[in-house]
């Protein structure tokens, strides 16, 4: 449907975001963090060039010859290695985090987007239309939730030809397995919403399911959607790492946060900084999306919008 109603109160998402940023300091902080991380990802080559490192070169001379842990305090942080180096390889940790941001943002965000999209549409359809649609969606969701996806991934890794671009494959797989839980939440909310007066009002005007979904249900579903999707980002980034090990992910040595973190867990005792840097990056990204999400949620809810 075209959008002729500029003046009728539906603000474009950008206007909403801009007004949120103007009013809400925390949301602003979140947005700035996201922007910085995005900048880190996009300019990874530039930053690492400035630093004089790259994420692939082994620098065993930067390691403690006795243990293979980084030489020097704080995981080998120095002017040469801003975040120190990776144990056992001596690869530059800053370069890994910066380049890893690309992989992780790409996978984490797009996969989240995909599962949210599927989950919201299917969940709302199930809750609103009921009957056969509802049953089909719930059953499919149940099958997917109960499905031994680990086995499936192993099978997929071996079956999908190497030509298929891995990032796309990852996004589709992670996105696809992520929708059922979102769909169930959206369905639950929709069941309550569909009996509300304003939904009846729209229906009596001849609004079809698509219109009801877009204009009546969706604005009232933002709360849970934002919560679930922003919180699912770290899980998806972690899943990317897990799948990399099964052969579905981005093949090493391309850096990714998830892979760095799972490698770092073993080193917490000896080299905590190896966990701290990529971990902090992941935490920051998630946190930033959450505060921004909160800000948006509040802005989208007219009853709380004027507060603060």
């Amino acid at each position, binding site marked *: 449907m075209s959008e002729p109603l500029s003046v009728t109160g539906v603000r474009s998402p950008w206007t909403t975001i801009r007004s949120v940023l103007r009013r809400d300091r925390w949301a602003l902080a979140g947005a700035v963090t996201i922007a910085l991380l995005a900048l880190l990802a996009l300019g990874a080559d530039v930053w690492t060039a400035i630093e004089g490192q790259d994420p*692939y*070169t*082994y620098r*065993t001379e930067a*390691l403690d*010859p*006795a*243990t*293979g*842990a980084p030489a020097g305090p704080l995981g080998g942080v120095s002017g040469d290695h801003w975040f120190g180096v990776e*144990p*056992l*390889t001596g690869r530059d940790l800053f370069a890994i985090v910066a380049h890893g941001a690309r992989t992780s943002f790409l996978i984490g965000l797009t996969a989240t987007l995909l599962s949210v999209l599927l989950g919201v549409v299917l969940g709302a359809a199930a809750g609103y239309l009921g009957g056969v649609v509802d049953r089909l969606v719930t059953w499919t969701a149940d099958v997917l939730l109960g499905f031994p996806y680990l086995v499936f991934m*192993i099978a997929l*890794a*071996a079956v999908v030809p*190497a030509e298929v671009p891995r990032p796309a494959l990852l996004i589709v797989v992670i996105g696809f397995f992520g929708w059922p839980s979102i769909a169930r939440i959206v369905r639950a909310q929709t069941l309550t919403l569909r009996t509300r007066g304003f939904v009846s009002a729209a229906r009596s005007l001849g609004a079809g399911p698509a219109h009801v979904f877009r204009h009546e249900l969706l604005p009232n579903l933002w709360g849970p959607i934002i919560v679930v999707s922003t919180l699912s980002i770290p899980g998806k980034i972690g899943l990317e790492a897990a799948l*990399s*090990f*099964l*052969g579905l992910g981005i*093949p*090493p*040595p391309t850096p990714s946060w998830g892979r760095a973190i799972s*490698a770092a867990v*073993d*080193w917490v*005792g*000896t*080299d905590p900084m190896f966990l701290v840097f990529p971990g902090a990056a992941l935490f920051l990204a998630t946190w930033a999306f959450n505060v921004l999400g909160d800000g948006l949620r509040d802005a989208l809810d007219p009853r709380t919008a004027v507060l603060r």
Partner: protein
Amino acid sequence: ANQAPQGAGQATATRGGTLRILSEGQTVNFDPAKSGSLAITSLGLVHRRLTGWLNKPGEQARVVPDLADAGKTDDGGRTWTFTLQDGLKFSDGTPITSADVKWGVQRSFAPAFSGGLGYHKQLLEGGADYRGPFEGAELAGIETPDAKTIRFRLVRPYGDWPWVVSTPAFAPVPHGKGAEPDYSEHPVASGPYQLAKYQKGVEAKLTRNAHWDQKTDQVRAGYPDEIVFQLGQDASVISQRLSADSGDDKTAFGSSFVSAAQLAQVTGNASAKDRIVTSKSGALAYLALNTEKAPLDNPKVREAFQYAVDKTSFQIASAGNAQLAGDIATTLITEGITGREKFDLFPAPPAGDPEKAKKLLAEAGFPNGLENLDFLVSKTNNAPEKAQALQASLQRAGIKTTIRTLDGDAYTEETSNSPVAKFDLTLASWQPDFPSANANIQPLFASSEIGGGGYNLSRYRDAEVDRLIDEAQATVDPDEAGRKWAAIDKRVLKDSPIVPLIYTRNSFLRGSKVANLYIADFPAYPNYLQVGLSS
């Protein structure tokens, strides 16, 4: 039968106490037919075999009598006769006879009990289509003229047969018993311990077998009164617990390797550092080159790899430093094995010689290096990390690879089971099942071991080598056989089907009261049979 205690600062083992073994696995298998266990680890505590291993640090492993003597052949290795000792008894008090040993071997042929080491299956006469004793048939290749004598007739002369009878299938099973699938949960013991309690995923508890007689056994010390396997433990947690060394954990040791990260942590802990037990040598880690696929079908190209790899960075990636990772490997036969000769056909500094590799590649017609080689690795055992180290070092010589990770089984399927192999390179390691050069070389380079579950990952096929292997296998005299194997070692490496990387050392961690936990030159595992507790 008592070994001098080995390993830094270990006290002398005394009799008694409860030894704990912390294990990652959910199960331990005490069914001799289904077990692939080495002669000196868990299964050996419960079951004796015809022969045993005597392995001491600094010495080459020897085959020694266990239930029987070390075997005799009078026709050049086709027929082997073993005589059981006197006074052997099962844990139920019945005497162990040659019929029980025969029954055990036959039982390993039953489809219901497959899965264990099966070197004997192709060698014994009539073994090819024997389906086990439970339907009444007997295996033609085994004779038991009397209760103490057992004679094996083989399809071809096989010098290593005394080693073969040290594998689990040669443990006795009371004649007529063991038809039930869960025999492993209540086996009739012949060793110093019997299985008292078994809970999958939780624990297996061994208590003394009153009918085991120390005097008849020269490979088992039988120090502890009880041995408890704690199952399903996480590797990191095991190493945390053992470094903390509190309570019961003082009398425990971990059965899995301590990883590089854990080593780094333990090294920082003075008290725990002394309790690391590292093998002197171990499995051969190697880079297999697919000799069937261009451009690696060209020996010259393969030779370039010998120089391109940086074995130091591989060592660091494996264990953090060269010391813990293991020495650089240049031969196929591993340390501690009779006949091993040390040589280096491709001398280069430890970090490799990329320039030489480039030169070789140019000579082979690849002046710009190699592009896009498929480097397949299993996701287990930190292989992806190690592969990255190799990838980075190959890159220096202009060899560009793409790592492809696969889940353990999918990996095995593609590398050892499928008739054709898509990969160019793969990372592997091999530890022989018994201490003979035969077990080092034949499984990896005989053309019969390509595909179909075999381990000839580089798909090396050379008629002359095959012939030499057959010849060496037929040699009965160990020293003569050793010389033959050493010659094969050189012969194979000349073709560069693999790049030997290191002899991986394995490190284990023990509690402060565990004594006599040592690792001989072969295999790179502690000898469970000798471990005890200090008082």
